[in-house]
């Protein structure tokens, strides 16, 4: 497999995952605001903070209202992380790697891209947003399903797995961080009432609520939800699962020793949360460290397989 092709596959999977996650995030926020008690102040702008988009957003918009936030996240060309920008990057990366992908992949991505562009207004106006975002999520899952059913488990597959799970792990920590930060901001007398709503939505955003109930067998609270999303062995969006997938994929590729060791270290540090009090500023620091480790991991993958140097024999 060409290094350049490997890199594009990796990024096509990352961007596809980002499209789905962005759609999930907006969709859950939408619901969250319906369910919250009136007196609780939660702004759409939190979504910008989670995605480290404050600077880009502030340059472009004055009003931090729903419409602008959703526009920024879904359709804004100037936001390289917006859903449409990510879709464009999926398309661009696949356009140049069609020869190693299942033939229908290109068609599905084109369809999705066309649908998103033609119906983007539905995503921005609230009345039809749910249908729109659902269709996007389904579109992404169609592609993932196609790959699962038809793609050879070769190097290309493993690079896509790494791309998908590193992006997912990254978003997982961002969502957790957003919830913790929201809880820390709220008044003491609201915490219990609010905790239920927020953590349920966090789980929902990851399609985790039913799995959580079956596995944890208790009502939703912060400590248990965070523990589930960080350490569950079987849930395919948990931190642990994502990291294990990356390690497994990496181990099929040449020169993977260092990367596997780094993932092991990261897994060791992935701990359960004992009580909701532990979801404090230190925990936010901890999440921040994980994010930095993920960035470092991305860097190592890039160095190890994509930046080819002559003489790096197999």
């Amino acid at each position: 497999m060409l290094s350049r092709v490997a890199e594009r596959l990796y990024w096509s999977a990352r961007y596809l995952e980002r499209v789905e996650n962005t759609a999930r995030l907006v969709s859950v926020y939408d619901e969250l605001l319906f369910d919250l008690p009136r007196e609780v102040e939660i702004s759409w702008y939190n979504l910008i903070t989670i995605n480290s988009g404050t600077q880009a957003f502030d340059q472009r918009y004055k009003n931090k209202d729903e419409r602008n936030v959703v526009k920024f996240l879904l359709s804004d060309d100037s936001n390289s992380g917006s859903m449409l920008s990510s879709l464009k990057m999926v398309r661009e990366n696949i356009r140049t790697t069609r020869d190693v992908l299942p033939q229908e992949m290109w068609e599905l991505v084109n369809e999705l891209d066309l649908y998103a562009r033609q119906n983007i207004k539905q995503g921005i106006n609230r009345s039809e947003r749910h249908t729109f975002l659902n269709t996007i999520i389904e579109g992404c899952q169609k592609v993932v399903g196609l790959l699962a059913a038809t793609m050879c488990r070769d190097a290309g597959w493993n690079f896509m797995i790494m791309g998908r799970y590193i992006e997912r792990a990254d978003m997982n920590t961002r969502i957790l961080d957003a919830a913790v930060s929201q809880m820390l901001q709220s008044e003491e007398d609201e915490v219990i009432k609010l905790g239920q709503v927020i953590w349920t939505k966090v789980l929902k955003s990851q399609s985790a609520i039913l799995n959580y109930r079956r596995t944890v067998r208790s009502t939703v609270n912060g400590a248990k939800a965070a523990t589930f999303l960080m350490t569950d062995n079987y849930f395919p969006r948990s931190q642990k699962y994502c990291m294990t997938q990356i390690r497994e994929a990496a181990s099929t590729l040449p020169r993977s020793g260092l990367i596997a060791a780094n993932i092991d270290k990261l897994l060791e540090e992935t701990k359960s949360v004992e009580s909701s009090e532990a979801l404090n500023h230190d925990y936010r620091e901890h999440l921040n460290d994980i994010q930095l480790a993920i960035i470092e991991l991305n860097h190592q993958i890039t160095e190890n397989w994509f930046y080819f140097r002559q003489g790096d024999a197999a």
Partner: protein
Amino acid sequence: MEKLSQDYRSAPFFDELIDHKGSPRPPAKQLLHYLESLPPEELEKRRQTAEATIQEMGISFTVYTDEGNIDRAWPFDIIPRTIDAQDWKIAEAGLKQRLTALNKFIDDLYHDQNCIKDGIIPEHIIKDSKNFLPECVGVSPAFGVWAHICGTDLVRDADGEFYVLEDNLRVPSGVSYMLENRALTKRVLPELFENDRILPLDSYPGQLFETLAALSPRKVPQPEIVVLTPGIYNSAYFEHAFLAQQMGAELVEGSDLFVDEDDCVYMKTIYGPERVDVIYRRIDDLFIDPETFEPESVLGVPGLMRAWRAGNVALANAPGAGVADDKVVYAYVPALIRYYLDEEPILKNVETYLCENDEDREFVLAHLDQLVVKPANESGGYGMLVGPHSTKKEQQTFAKLIKENPRNYIAQPTLKLSTAPILTDKGDIDPRHLDLRPFILQSKDTYVTTGGLTRVAMKKGSLVVNSSQGGGSKDTWIVDTKVTEAKGE
């Protein structure tokens, strides 16, 4: 749909589907009968299906404009063009004959130049050709074949006979569109494929693979074959990716390859360097190796010519093959066929005036309003003058160009290009001019596509079929009418 053929007339042109009396030609009978059975709304629906499918399949080509590069959807007309298998058999034999002679000619030019010594072709034509590469002299590619992939443009004149318009021996494109057109038609008019009289054409990628694999300098069971593309901004990128995928070959850009000190070509993979045996290159000669040619080229691979001359890698088409892809050399092809093969040409050339000959030039300058003038070395329909459709001013510009550089221009009579019906935006059936580009492969064996890419001038009366200039295309059916008759239709 009303009886299509009743009011449809294309005379004085030869129409591929409907004869001058308004009756369907035998290979088109069933097709027209079927189209007539569809209500107009249904036909419109099929057209929309085609458009949607093109978008979904992402069939596109890139057009260069002042505003930047635009990725355009492939313009496609849903009514197929039909050719009788009997007629096609003859054309096929003619195409094989032609490429065989052309390859012998190229090989001769880079070795003993007997064709010049024997006075078949004047020496200055080679001396002045910008496609003759001194760097290739003395090199002996496998099987003596230089042009492995050739796209030859055929047209039918008013008499219905096939003529060769030009041979594209450098980096001919279009074959993926030929295959996609068929895939589209199968989705749009599936009912018509129920019987097997339309000859299939999906064997091309396999044939291309065999043709390339036979060139491998290393005799290994699985030679490493790559398609070398200039990249995503090339107008034919879609095709490069398509062919690589269909062949299971690696699609590479120049920066993915390097030539090592052992004069072998390697590609940069996640496992380290891997030796490359055959390169199907879709980059023009002058850009393939900055060490030998254009030093500024970032598309190519430094040292590629070194590796090729050393026999460590096969290049298809071989560098320098373009010397025969010259509209002046074209005029001599019938003579070359007689010289190298001792056979009469099966396919005719279009009458060609060489502006470098004083007599021809006088004639051309006096008849600019009637002739088609072409530069000897351009492709894509650029820099052409179509006399009957030109203004006085354009004719004056060309007169000046011809006088300045007569070697660079040829002229041909304006052909009465054949037509076929298209479905217009209004939902009418109207004749449009078209040509046909079959693809011929040659290495160990020779293979011709079943039919080829039909290109249509979508504008009424226009003769320019190039997709870069508003042309469209159609599926091309080679129809075995004998089978049809046997079935009693």
